[in-house]
């Protein structure tokens, strides 16, 4: 990116940004008072109300992936991008809350890998803990790199200053404030991100003549009529996304999205920090409601950019799709809301990176260090380890930031990572939760072979041995194949190996609930509007209804 994107920030815009930095750090330091035990540091003492954990849940996902990537997809693929929200997120979030959270929260595990240790065995656990830790650091690097690129392009900051400023602030508030620092800031970031994106959407829509004007203009753009339909034309792969409806429903809607939302500890951790079972179950479901509406401030600006920015979609330079939002900011926002929008972008990158870092430090401390290296230390020792792990993660993240530079569309890069790490994991979880007989060894071999298949598909595609219509189609199929592999291996290995005794499965599998678990519900949890099932069903129905005008 050259200087073409440079924004005309004035002193008051910088004041807005500076106030945000100060507030974020303040929240981190204020959260420090609330850290006495390792559970305080890593899981906020399991004390947070559902609206806080729910907003943090959605915010943890609002990193580079969402804002820059989804606006880029909106410009490139049109309305089909909503699949990432309405079929690719909401059903999985609801499923996590209704079906899976009782196992996660009820068993009191401190992380997703830890569930694997209890349900299967230590090799399965170690495999997942390490692959998760590596993935988190890589993705934190992606977020950091994206942040630095934007700061460089928009504000003219040198890349290294942008990287250091972003990294140091995240580092400070997580090291000091732990997960509470991260989560409280995520709630704040959620509102700042929305405040930054809404003016872009509003002015953009005014410019193109409202929703009708936008639709007319998209018909005449290079996307054409196909850019306005989510499902039409998915009978073949002849559509902007290059995906068949089977790929969308099973690849994106099932394997990819369930893999991401239900087993990604950076997300699940937010729910584990909720104060009781009811709040934990509502966490992802409350998050599903903002998720339903976020395309309004990402996909629509993407389409607006496609129309109003001449030449958008270049292979390189200032006019790549990833710059859709920054270009609109430059063209449409006066000082004032401009400062808010820049702050919103910075907030989104920080939220994404903080989620990865706080997920990493927990898994590293509980699942790698405590489980395999230093087992019987006092609780306070692990808080220290967690703080050191945070520093290491951020430093390594800075290093890996540059791996992301090789990909033109950050979104595809992250998708590729997720299909490698999450799809086989989801397969192993879901079969392990509902098939009590599945043995510990089957868990290990399923997870390993599924991961190998996902990596192999990706490598074969990248080296040109097999071909798909697009990177996105590759990730659909890679995820699907990995899932099938997990199921097949589980079915073959389980009958050949010893089952796990029922006594070790209580609270971990379907049909063996933990009768001794204390009822932790609070007054008011029984109210109908706090029923996870009802809230979840309404969210899914809304997602289906939202498709009607853009079918």
């Amino acid at each position, binding site marked *: 990116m050259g200087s073409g994107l440079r924004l005309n920030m004035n002193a008051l815009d910088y*004041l*807005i940004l500076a*106030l*945000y930095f100060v*507030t974020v750090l*303040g*929240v981190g330091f*204020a*959260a420090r*008072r*609330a850290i*006495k*035990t*390792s*559970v*305080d540091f890593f899981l*906020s*003492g399991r*004390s*947070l*109300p*559902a*609206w*806080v954990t729910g907003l943090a849940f959605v915010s943890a996902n609002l990193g580079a992936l969402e804002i820059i990537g989804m606006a880029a997809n909106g410009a490139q693929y049109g309305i089909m991008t909503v699949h990432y929200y309405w079929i690719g997120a909401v059903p999985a979030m609801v499923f996590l809350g209704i079906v899976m959270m009782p196992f996660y929260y009820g*068993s009191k595990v*401190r992380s997703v890998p*830890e569930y694997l240790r*209890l349900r299967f065995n230590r090799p399965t656990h170690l495999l997942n803990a390490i692959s998760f830790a590596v993935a988190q650091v890589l993705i934190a690097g992606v977020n950091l790199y994206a942040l630095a690129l934007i700061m460089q392009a928009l504000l003219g900051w040198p890349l290294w200053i942008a990287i250091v400023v972003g990294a140091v602030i995240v580092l400070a508030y997580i090291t000091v404030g732990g997960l509470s620092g991260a989560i409280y800031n995520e709630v*704040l970031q959620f*509102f700042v991100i929305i*405040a930054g994106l*809404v*003016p872009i959407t*509003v*002015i953009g829509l*005014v*410019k193109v003549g409202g929703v009708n004007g936008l639709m007319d203009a998209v018909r005449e753009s290079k996307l054409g009529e196909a850019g306005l339909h989510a499902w039409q034309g998915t009978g073949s792969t002849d559509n902007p996304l290059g995906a068949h409806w089977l790929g969308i429903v099973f690849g994106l809607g099932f394997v990819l999205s369930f893999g991401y939302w239900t087993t990604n500890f950076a997300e699940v951790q937010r729910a584990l920090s909720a104060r009781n079972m009811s709040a934990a179950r509502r966490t992802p479901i*409350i998050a599903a409601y903002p998720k339903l509406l976020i395309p309004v401030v990402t996909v629509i600006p993407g389409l607006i950019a496609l129309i109003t920015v001449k030449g958008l979609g270049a292979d390189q330079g200032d006019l790549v799709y990833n710059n859709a939002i920054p270009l609109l900011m430059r063209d*449409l926002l*006066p000082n*004032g*809301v401009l*400062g*808010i929008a820049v702050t919103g972008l910075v907030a989104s990158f920080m939220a994404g990176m903080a989620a990865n870092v706080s997920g990493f430090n927990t898994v590293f401390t*509980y699942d790698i260090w*405590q489980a395999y290296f230093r087992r019987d230390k006092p*609780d306070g020792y*692990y808080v220290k380890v967690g703080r050191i792990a945070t520093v290491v993660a951020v430093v390594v993240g800075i290093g890996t930031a540059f791996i992301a530079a090789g990909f033109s569309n950050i979104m595809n890069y992250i998708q590729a990572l997720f299909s490698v790490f999450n799809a086989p994991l989801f397969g192993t979880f879901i079969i392990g939760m509902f098939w009590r007989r599945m043995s510990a060894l089957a868990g290990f071999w399923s997870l390993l072979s599924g991961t190998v298949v996902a990596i192999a598909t990706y490598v074969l595609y990248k080296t040109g041995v097999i071909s798909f219509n697009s990177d996105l189609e590759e990730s659909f199929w890679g995820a699907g194949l990995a899932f099938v592999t997990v199921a097949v291996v589980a079915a073959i290995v389980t009958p050949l190996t010893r089952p796990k005794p029922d*006594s*070790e499965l*209580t609270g971990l599998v379907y049909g063996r609930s*933990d*009768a*001794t678990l204390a009822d932790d519900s*609070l*007054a*008011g949890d029984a109210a109908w*509007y*706090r029923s996870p099932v009802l*809230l979840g069903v309404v969210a899914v129905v809304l997602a289906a209804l939202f498709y009607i005008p853009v079918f």
Partner: protein
Amino acid sequence: MADNEDRYQHGEAHDPLVDETEDAREARSAAARLFDIRRVIGGLFVVYGLIVGLMGLFDSSAEIDKAQGVRINLWAGAVMLVFGLLMLLWQRLSPTEAPEPQRDES
């Protein structure tokens, strides 16, 4: 994990590592004393609302033209100010110490 067989006598799939941290949490956890994030969000948005809203009052016509004739600073400032005040009001009406905040799902 055969070495933990004795831990499972309560009919629960208990794990020593999990139990230890849970015990430590129940004994010493300080998280209940966490401050209220609503006050922080409310405060920041009130300040943002005032800054942006005041800038909106003095916007030049060039800036209004850039925003397609919308007085966006004025509008955005007002909305942020109201939102911030509502957060503070919510926090005032149902402080953290209450067992469960109202309007949980809103």
